[in-house]
């Protein structure tokens, strides 16, 4: 039996993410990606030019703290900021593109996101209706989004409400998360009404939404227009608001349908090259590279054939892609022939500067296996053999962020050998002054001993799993210049490594 509460309709909840410094932060982010060094304390001015007049379109928080305002002339802003400033051009297309990318990124929180199309501060709306099982607490979700945006260099204000207009009004009005709790206390500009109408409202001392509510509906419509009334009704849930969600752009793909089954290898290769060329054109238009592609062939009298390729680095190089696909075409079992070819990009990534490295990785992995090229990751472990791990590049990537993350672990501040033997080799040791190490048939007179350093495996490790992890470790400095890494256990002495 279903509980009555479970049959109630879902209460709509919208989360608005407003970006008060969007243009300035987009410009700063873009400049940094282009290699322009901008100090954190520098005042960033986003300059727009209209009819020969250069004005400040947006500015960063540092510039705003100095007194720079939006719409101010550039000359005045320069006088305020002094030499510690960076002037960047306003690019509306870039701002819109990044806002769309942000809305797509927010789909990790809910499948429905949209961009508030009206005037004023850029806002991304997230429909979190029914997502309470995934995000148990709205404040926690808001905080998570604000932190994520902050990590990407964006200042964000968030608010949740029962409808989109109310959420937008609260988010754009708030300067701190709990500053404005009610819609009535929000300024009228947060209803996203045109500037001229707001100025007319200010003339009659209407500054808050609560002031609007005290007026009659007829007077509001006659004085400020029907749009103002509509926005007010939308904010209080009396009117519906059309929502057009952001849909992620389809991934690049190309298709070729033959008139009949084709079995000739050269025709298939040429067709593949054409498909690859078409896909690469789409990738270049998106300024992206393919991380994973799939070539599928519908064959006559044979099951569907697919070949999936993972690239070490995002690639939009048609020659490289075709070269990677060519060997698999030769091995294809196409029955009577191929009727339809389809090449689809399954994953994309931002193009890296080191395209040559990506192609090098692909070439090696295609011949030696997917795990042939690796990079290093560090682990916080005292045991030398377990202080590092090898990560296949195809699965873990090798971009700077992933690599830095894998190498972030703290390392033990102690002497460790540069060469670890594949397995411990037994040695005969005479400890103390005038001691010696007999190993591999040679007797090394020891000049000085350094140790012991006791390393014990964690309680989770069993002896079977870690045979040479624990024990008392010594460094032996030999008279003949050798430095050996020795271990002493109940079973005796063994050499585990050396400095070479």
């Amino acid at each position, binding site marked *: 039996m279903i509980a009555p509460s479970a049959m109630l309709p879902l209460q709509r909840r919208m989360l608005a993410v407003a970006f008060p410094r969007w243009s300035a932060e987009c410009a700063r982010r873009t400049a940094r990606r282009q290699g322009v060094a901008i100090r954190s304390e520098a005042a960033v001015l986003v300059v727009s030019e209209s009819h020969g007049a250069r004005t400040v379109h947006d500015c960063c928080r540092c510039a705003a703290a100095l007194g720079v305002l939006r719409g101010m002339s550039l000359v005045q802003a320069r006088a305020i900021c002094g030499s510690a400033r960076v002037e960047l051009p306003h690019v509306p297309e870039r701002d819109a593109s990044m806002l769309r990318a942000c809305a797509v990124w927010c789909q990790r929180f809910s499948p429905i996101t949209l961009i508030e199309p009206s005037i004023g501060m850029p806002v991304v709306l997230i429909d979190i209706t029914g997502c309470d099982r995934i995000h148990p607490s709205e404040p926690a979700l808001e905080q998570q989004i604000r932190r994520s945006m902050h990590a990407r260099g964006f200042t964000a204000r968030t608010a949740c409400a029962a409808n989109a207009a109310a959420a937008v009004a609260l988010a754009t009005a708030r300067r701190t998360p709990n500053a404005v709790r009610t819609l009535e206390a929000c300024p009228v500009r947060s209803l996203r009404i045109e500037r001229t109408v707001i100025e007319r409202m200010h003339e009659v001392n209407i500054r808050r939404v609560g002031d609007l509510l005290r007026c009659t509906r007829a007077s509001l419509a006659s004085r400020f227009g029907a749009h103002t009334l509509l926005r007010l009704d939308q904010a209080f849930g009396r009117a519906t608001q059309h929502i057009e969600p952001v849909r992620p752009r389809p991934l690049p793909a190309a298709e070729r349908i033959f008139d009949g089954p084709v079995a000739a290898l050269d025709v298939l290769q040429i067709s593949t090259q054409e498909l690859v060329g078409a896909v690469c054109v789409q990738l270049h238009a998106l300024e992206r590279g393919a991380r994973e592609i799939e070539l599928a062939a519908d064959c006559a009298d044979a099951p569907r054939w697919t070949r999936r390729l993972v690239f070490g680095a995002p690639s939009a190089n048609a020659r490289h892609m075709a070269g990677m696909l060519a060997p698999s075409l030769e091995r294809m079992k196409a029955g009577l022939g191929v009727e339809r070819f389809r090449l689809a990009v399954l994953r994309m990534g931002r193009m890296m500067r080191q395209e040559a490295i990506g192609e090098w990785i692909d070439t090696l992995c295609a011949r030696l296996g997917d795990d042939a090229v690796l990079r290093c990751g560090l682990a916080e472990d005292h045991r030398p053999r377990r202080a590092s791990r090898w990560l296949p590049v195809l699965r873990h990537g090798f971009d700077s962020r992933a690599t830095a993350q894998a190498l972030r672990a703290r390392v033990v501040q102690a002497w460790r050998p540069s060469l670890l033997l594949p397995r411990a080799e037994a040695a005969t040791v005479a400890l103390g002054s005038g001691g010696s190490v007999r190993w591999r048939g040679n007797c090394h007179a020891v000049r000085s001993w350094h140790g012991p350093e006791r390393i014990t495996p964690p309680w989770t490790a069993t002896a079977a799993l870690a045979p040479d992890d624990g024990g008392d470790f010594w460094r032996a400095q030999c008279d003949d210049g050798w430095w050996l890494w020795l271990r002493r256990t109940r079973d005796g002495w063994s050499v585990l490594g050396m400095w*070479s």
Partner: protein
Amino acid sequence: MGGIPDEIRQRAALLVQSSSALLPSLRCAAGGAPQDLCARGASADLPIELGVVHEWMWREARHAAWTVPHGAMIALCWRMLDSVQDGRVAWIGRHAWPVPRACIRRDGSRLLLERSLFVDPGASHSKDERIWAVQQSLACDGICAVVFDASGCSMVASRRLQLAAARGDGRPAVLALAVRPWHERLTPSAAATRWAVAPSSLQRRDAGVTGAHVLPDSTDEGDDAPVWIAELLRARGALAHAAGQCTYRIAATWSWSGATPCVGASDGDFGTEPRT
């Protein structure tokens, strides 16, 4: 009648020059005019030339397991990274891989690890696969240094690698370091140089052997740090009896001590092998 041929005159001039030079003179990889061994490496602050293959081996008694002079490899790769803006380091063959911890500098810099990619041709693959991987790496412009396991490498294969390392004009030069077992020290090879590394014995250091060891006086560890000698066994195209030594030492991390190799100061027991 003719007088002294130009080539002999040139060689004689080089012989005089080599007595004061840091390293013996070598022909450049492309077969051009004779030039100093460190001429191309000088910009990278490296004691060896770029664009040619250098073989390195650890001097040891014959044993089933052979040792790689990781300290020298790491020190040279660090020098290379210090001098180039971009570029990766490829370590090919598990035998050539260093312990990652040893690649971290004393100041905590992990740049070498960040830029390093390790290639494992796998036990199932043949030696040819390894050589092929090295060839691909040497030909890749995005790689500035290649350290590879060259055990069992034939003369033909080493010539192919030498050609791949030379790259073409206008392309960035690559630091190519081949590591081989000591028992292959007499194997013919097309590599430009062949170096032997051995621990520096305390007696020799205490005795102050002239020219063999140059250690900085003020170091944090004093004698309490491993020190090795890298000796130039053979240099292709170099003058007879040309051999040099340099010393590097390890502190918490590897670094070339800045010691200058001395021409003609090789130890008797190492010997100088005839030029190929």
